[in-house]
């Protein structure tokens, strides 16, 4: 019997061997294309892990399918006699509040709107898959990066001639490889649901394109976050994922509206961009989403590769910040061209959005403490940064990677005002002026905060970043409390204008109805002056501290400063 058994098992072994050879060849090709990806796959995708994840993914899909089938069965079920029944997945007439009156196809069943049922299944499945990637995928990335930083192995990878682009790509695709495998297993159902839901191949590709762009942005944000933290990756990885979900759910809401426009389910909210209602045109909205997310991803990618190659550098160059400011403003202007009086008031939105962008620049352009100290101490040695030459010094402040960021922030504010100026002039009225006022206010305020943060980072304390964040928080909350205390609602109240010194300054004009009120305008001018003076004073304090720390050892001794700050 034995020879017979071995003969029977021979083809199986042969097939197994052939499969293994094919698998090895495929992995070899993958490794030739991206060694980092192969390394991550080998590290994560052990046989055991793959089997567990595959079983979990299939089981989850089966449960999800049964659950969704039940919804259809519930929709079709006729329970009572003659009273009208309204159900979401029914077909039939709509009433005044956009409910669907169920249409009977037999004595025991209502007609089910199958395309809608499939479309919502597609949406639900996509939401779960994306949520999984946002929560678990980002966590895998953060942990992977943090572990490499902690072990010190990132330095070895950096030392190799392999480009940072390929390494980061390998990490993005490979660190969450198991989650990607689970998502791949769900793609057949996802595709079937999309096609049955009436999206068509083009629609499906467009929706998946948005999903890929969205998840790429989240992944890059996760890597960006991981590259800024030093430890406690276990907690912070999950924290990032949960925060990601928090931002992801509103995106779902926005995404669902245009998707359901393919079916006659009533009107969706309006969002105009250069005169086009983008929500009414799902293709345009998807294209815009892909374009915006891709731009954000490119900016993040450049920051990440830059930090990967030079860990002591700022996240972004000053030149990049100018270009991105230009792009952001041109994009933002689109929402207010052509201007219609019934639209949302732009001053608050533009000012607040600009304030947020400035906060991002403040963080991305802030040189690390050591870089600043070295710049202050040795800038005289670099010809291109010769402080004795006013022109070179200006160039250094405008473009240099190691110099403080104040001038660059100011230039970003100036670019924004310059771009909104023609728009503001076109209105010849308070609306345009108020937008410029909001932008100027946000710029001045962020300059003040940037100087404050820079100053705190130069302190000789154990955790300067924690101090800077803490102090900034106190100043922000304190100023808001002061604003509340001094009175906001009454625009005639002189002190109410001191809100201009708070982070909500840019929102203020939208809360004031009497723009022409002379008391209010006078107070606004005074508040601006105080804001500007505070920014200049803080800048001087920070620069004085920097100059002191940049003294040579002998000069410091002559001044009586301690050598060790």
């Amino acid at each position: 019997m034995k020879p017979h058994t071995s003969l029977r098992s021979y083809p199986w072994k042969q097939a197994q061997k052939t499969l293994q050879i094919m698998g090895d060849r495929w992995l070899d090709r993958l490794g030739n294309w991206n060694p980092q990806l192969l390394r991550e796959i080998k590290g994560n995708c052990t046989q055991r892990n793959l089997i567990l994840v595959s079983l979990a993914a299939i089981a989850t899909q089966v449960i999800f399918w049964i659950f969704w089938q039940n919804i259809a069965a519930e929709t079709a079920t006729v329970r009572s006699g003659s009273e009208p029944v309204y159900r979401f997945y029914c077909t039939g007439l709509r009433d005044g509040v956009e409910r669907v009156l169920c249409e009977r196809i037999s004595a025991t069943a209502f007609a089910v709107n199958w395309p809608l049922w499939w479309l919502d299944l597609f949406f639900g499945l996509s939401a779960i898959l994306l949520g999984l990637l946002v929560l678990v995928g980002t966590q895998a990335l953060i942990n992977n990066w943090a572990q490499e930083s902690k072990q010190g192995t990132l330095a070895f990878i950096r030392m190799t001639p392999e480009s940072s682009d390929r390494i980061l790509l390998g990490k993005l695709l490979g660190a969450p490889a198991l989650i990607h495998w689970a998502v791949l297993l769900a793609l057949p159902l996802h595709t079937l649901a999309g096609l049955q839901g009436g999206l068509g191949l083009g629609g499906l590709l467009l929706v998946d394109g948005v999903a890929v762009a969205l998840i790429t942005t989240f992944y890059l944000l996760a890597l960006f976050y991981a590259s800024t933290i030093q430890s406690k990756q276990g907690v912070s990885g999950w924290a990032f994922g949960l925060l990601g979900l928090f931002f992801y759910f509103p995106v779902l809401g926005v995404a669902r509206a245009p998707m359901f426009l393919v079916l006659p389910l009533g009107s969706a909210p309006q969002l105009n961009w250069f005169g086009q209602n983008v929500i009414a045109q799902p293709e345009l909205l998807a294209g815009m989403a892909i374009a915006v997310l891709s731009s954000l991803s490119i900016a993040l990618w450049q920051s990440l590769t830059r930090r990967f190659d030079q860990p002591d550098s700022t996240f972004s160059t000053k030149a990049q910040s100018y270009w991105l400011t230009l792009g952001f403003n041109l994009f933002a202007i689109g929402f207010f061209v052509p201007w219609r009086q019934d639209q949302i008031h732009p001053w608050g939105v533009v000012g607040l959005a600009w304030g947020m962008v400035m906060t991002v620049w403040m963080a991305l352009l802030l040189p690390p403490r050591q870089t600043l100290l070295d710049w202050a101490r040795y800038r005289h040695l670099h010809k291109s940064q010769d402080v004795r030459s006013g022109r070179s010094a200006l160039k250094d402040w405008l473009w240099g990677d190691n110099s403080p960021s104040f001038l660059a922030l100011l230039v970003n504010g100036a670019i924004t005002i310059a771009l909104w100026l023609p728009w503001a002039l076109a209105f010849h009225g308070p609306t345009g002026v108020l937008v410029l006022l909001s932008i100027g206010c946000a710029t001045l305020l962020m300059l003040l905060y940037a100087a404050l943060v820079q100053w705190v980072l130069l302190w000789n304390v154990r955790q300067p970043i924690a101090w800077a964040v803490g102090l900034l928080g106190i100043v922000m909350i304190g100023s808001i409390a002061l604003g509340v205390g001094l009175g906001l609602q009454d625009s005639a109240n002189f002190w109410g204008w001191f809100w201009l010194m708070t982070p909500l300054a840019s929102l203020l004009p939208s809360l004031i109805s009497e723009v022409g009120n002379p008391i209010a305008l006078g107070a606004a001018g005074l508040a601006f002056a105080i804001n500007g003076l505070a920014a200049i004073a803080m800048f001087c304090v920070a620069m004085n501290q920097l100059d002191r720390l940049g003294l040579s050892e002998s000069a410091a001794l002559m001044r009586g400063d301690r050598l060790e700050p």
Partner: protein
Amino acid sequence: MDWAIETRGLTKRFDRKLAVDSVDLQIAAGEVYGLIGPNGAGKTTLIRMLATVEKPTIGEIFIDGIPIDHCDHRATLKQRIGFLPDDFPVYDDLNVWDYLDYFGRLYGLRGTRLRERLYDVLDLVQLLPKRDSPIATLSRGMKQRLSLARTIIHEPILLLLDEPVSGLDPIARLEFRNLIRILQSAGMTVLISSHVLSDLAELCSAIGVMELGQLVASAPLDQLYAQFSRQTLVITALDRLDELQAILRTDRRAIAWECNSADGQIKVEFQGDETDCSDLLNELIRAQIPVVEFRRDRESLEQIFLKMGHQQAS
């Protein structure tokens, strides 16, 4: 002369503390250069800057005459450098083969060349039998050898080793020394920092001493011995030690000696070269002193180091 490594005014500050202070270092191609100095002297920072892991605050580094921060040559320079830090971190989730395969690919090795190289380095570090073992199961000595294999997988011409034998047992240290000799014979330039000066004395052709961030001495090992080492002659005779001492008294090259009558041994502080030693031995034989041992001893590197006024912490 084109140096394998040359630094000019190399400086690194951490906060306002100078970790490396204006170091001008030159290492010739094919040399094994030992870097010694107390903890905190700046050895590791200097090596990390040479390995491009750390960026200098100011100063220049040239590898084979090419400035290290030259963008056009960065990839070429990276191919030439191999760096082994003192903690040699590895990936515990990979096996030995996959770990080296990964780094080989990162250095651009592909196909047959990659496989050949993997077998070569595994054979060199004697880990071929462990090629399929998970890294987590290796001993410290094996991990250290694996890290060395990773360091040389791309055939660098400059090897930077920071405390490579720390924490290794004597046999592992011996194996490591042998490996370095093999690599040196293959033409590699090696820079080693270590507190085990006896190892450096065996391996190195030149020594640099660092203190408080500065390179306070840098010279070929022979020159150091010639300049600082006291030569001692150990002479053992069966008897007639008095006559032996009488001969020494008439010889100006014998500066001082110490006689141990019980062992029949005299240790002579002797100033002279090999010919002088030979002359003295001839004289003793002519005087029919029953000499059973006559050898030259010189002070160890550690003794020289201390004599130079430095304090070696180990």
